[in-house]
C-alpha cells in the first residue's frame, strides 16, 4: 500500500508523522512538497518582530521522517486522476497511489482592487513575505489591510521594529469574528497607545502609484504609503483537484468525519478543506494549523486501519498581540451567529483583564478574553471542557 501526500505544510507533514507513529511503513509514504523544508507560519510574526533568523520557522520533525525512510519529492502536483489513482507531478511525471492525502493549504486572498499588482504590494503568508518584510527600512510607512490575527500580528511585529504602521479594517471592530465588540475596543485602544494607527470601517478602494505603491485610498481618504501588506484572509488552494470529481463547497474540499473526501482513498486536511464544528456539527472553513493537524491524525488512524471519526473542533486560540494576551475558546458571538445560533454575551471587566462568555440557552459555548490573569485561565479551560461535556 502506497500513500501519497500532497503538500509539505503542517497538514502534510503531520499526516506523514502520524502514519509512521501508527506503524505505517515509512518507505511506502511519498510526500510531494513544493516548499521544503517544512516550516510553521505561526512563527513568522515573532521572527519578523525580533529580527531572528528564519531557521526559527522550521519544524524539527522532518529530519526524523527522512531518517525513517519517508520519501520526499520536491515537486508540484498538477492533476489528480481518481479513476486510475494517479497524480501528475510537474517534474516527476505521473505516480500512482493507493491512498492520497491532499494537504495543499491555502493561498492568501487579495481583493480585486486597482493597484494590487504594483511593486511593494504584498501579503504576509510565507517565508518569502517574511524575507521581504525583514528588509524594509525603518522609515517606511506600511499599510496593513485587514485586522484579523494575521494582520495584527504583522502590524505589531513591524511596530516593534519602529516602522510606522496603519491598519485598515472594513468592519467596525478589529479581530472581527475572533473576539467581540467590548474586547476589540480594549485591544484597539491598547494598540493605538503603542503607536499603531487603526482605521476601522475603512474600505480600501485603490492602491495608487506608478510602478511602486505611493498612496492608498480608503473610504475616500488618500494617505501616503511605501509598503502595502494584504492580510485579507485565506482561500483554499485546490487547483490540482479540479476536474477530479471530488465534492467541493465554496471552493473548499468537503471531507467526512474520518477525513476522507467524497471519493474513497482520497483524503484532505488543512487550509484546502472544510472541517467540522463540534458545537453546531456544521461544516466550516477555518484555516488554522491545529485543525490541519487534528485531521492529519484522524486520517493516519484510518489509513492504518483504526476507524476513527472526529467529533469536531472546538477552537482554542491564544495570541500575544504586541503584548496583549488574547484567549478564545469555543465560539465568538459573531461566529455563533454566522453558524445560525442565537447566542447572548456576558462580559466582565477588571483592572487586569476583560472577558466575555458566549451563551446559547444559558449554556456556555464560547469564552474570549484579553489580559493575563488566573481568572481568565480558570474560566477558559473550564468552558473548554464544559463545551466538550455538553456537545459530544
Amino acid at each position, binding site marked *: 500500500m502506497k500513500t501519497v501526500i500532497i503538500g509539505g505544510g*503542517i497538514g502534510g507533514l503531520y499526516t506523514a508523522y502520524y502514519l509512521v507513529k501508527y506503524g505505517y511503513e515509512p518507505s511506502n509514504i511519498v510526500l510531494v512538497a513544493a516548499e521544503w523544508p517544512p516550516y510553521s507560519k505561526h512563527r513568522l*510574526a*515573532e521572527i519578523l518582530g525580533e529580527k*531572528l533568523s528564519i531557521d526559527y520557522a522550521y519544524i524539527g520533525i522532518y529530519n526524523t521522517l527522512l531518517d525513517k525512510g519517508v520519501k520526499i519529492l520536491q515537486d508540484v502536483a498538477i492533476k489528480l486522476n481518481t479513476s486510475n489513482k494517479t497524480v501528475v507531478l510537474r517534474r516527476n511525471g505521473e505516480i500512482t497511489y493507493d491512498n492520497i492525502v491532499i494537504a495543499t493549504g491555502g493561498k492568501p486572498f487579495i481583493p480585486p482592487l486597482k493597484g494590487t499588482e504594483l511593486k511593494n504590494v504584498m501579503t504576509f503568508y510565507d517565508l518569502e513575505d517574511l524575507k521581504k518584510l525583514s528588509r524594509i527600512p525603518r522609515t517606511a510607512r506600511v499599510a496593513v489591510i485587514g485586522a484579523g490575527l494575521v494582520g495584527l500580528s504583522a502590524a505589531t511585529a513591524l511596530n516593534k521594529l519602529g516602522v510606522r504602521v496603519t491598519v485598515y479594517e472594513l468592519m467596525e471592530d478589529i479581530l472581527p469574528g475572533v473576539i467581540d465588540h467590548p474586547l476589540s475596543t480594549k485591544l484597539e485602544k491598547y494598540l493605538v497607545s503603542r503607536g499603531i494607527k487603526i482605521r476601522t470601517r475603512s474600505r480600501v478602494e485603490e492602491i495608487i502609484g506608478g510602478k511602486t505603491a505611493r498612496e492608498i485610498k480608503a473610504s475616500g481618504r488618500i494617505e501616503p504609503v511605501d509598503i502595502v501588506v494584504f492580510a485579507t484572509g485565506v482561500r483554499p488552494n485546490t487547483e490540482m483537484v479540479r476536474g477530479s470529481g471530488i465534492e467541493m463547497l465554496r471552493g473548499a474540499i468537503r471531507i467526512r468525519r474520518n477525513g476522507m473526501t467524497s471519493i474513497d482513498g482520497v483524503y484532505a486536511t488543512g487550509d484546502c478543506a472544510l472541517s467540522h464544528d463540534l458545537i453546531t456539527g456544521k461544516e466550516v472553513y477555518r484555516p488554522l494549523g491545529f485543525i490541519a493537524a487534528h485531521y492529519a491524525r484522524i486520517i493516519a488512524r484510518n489509513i492504518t486501519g483504526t476507524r476513527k471519526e472526529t467529533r469536531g473542533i472546538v477552537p482554542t486560540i491564544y495570541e500575544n498581540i504586541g503584548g496583549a494576551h488574547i484567549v478564545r475558546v469555543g465560539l465568538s458571538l459573531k461566529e455563533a451567529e454566522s453558524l445560525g445560533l442565537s447566542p447572548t454575551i456576558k462580559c466582565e471587566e477588571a483592572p487586569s483583564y476583560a472577558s466575555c462568555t458566549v451563551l446559547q440557552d444559558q449554556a456556555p459555548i464560547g469564552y474570549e478574553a484579553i489580559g*493575563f490573569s488566573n481568572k481568565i485561565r*480558570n474560566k477558559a479551560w473550564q468552558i473548554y471542557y464544559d463545551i466538550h461535556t455538553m456537545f459530544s
Partner: protein
Amino acid sequence: MVKHVLDIDPEKCNACMRCVFACSLARSGVIDERQAMITIVVEKGVVVDIAVCRHCDPAPCVNVCEFDALHVENGRVILDQSKCTTCKACISVCPFGAIRESYGGELVKCDLCGGDPACVRVCPTGAIRYLPAHLVKMRRMGGATRTVYEYLEIIGRG
C-alpha cells in the same frame, strides 16, 4: 519513585526573582527572564500567582495538542520542541499560565529539571516546594467548581 510536583504558595512569595533567574540559568545558561519557565505574576504590587507547570494529571495541554508535542514521561509533562509548531492552543487552555513564548515563538515550559528543580533549590521562603503529588492540594483551583482531574475524566484522552 512517587510522583513529585511543585507546590506553589504565592502568599509566601516576596518576588525576589531568584527562581526565575535560576530557572533561566538551568535551561539556557544565561539569566534572561524570557527563557525562564516560571513567571511571578504581580498585580498592584502584590504577588497573585507563580505561573509554572503543575504537571496536571491528566493534563489539559497534552489533551489539546494536535501535534503530539506534549507528552507525559514519568509523571512529568514534557514539551518536545521538535514537534511544536507554536499553534499556541495549549496556552489557551492551560489553567496555570505555565506555557510561555520565548524567542522566535519557541515555547518553554517546566520539565522539573529532571527531578531536581532549580527554582526549589533557591527559593528562600518556601513559596515553591517539591513534594509528592498526593500531598499537593493544587488540584483544586481558585474559583473553579471542579478539579482538572474531574474535567479530564469527562472528556477522555486522545
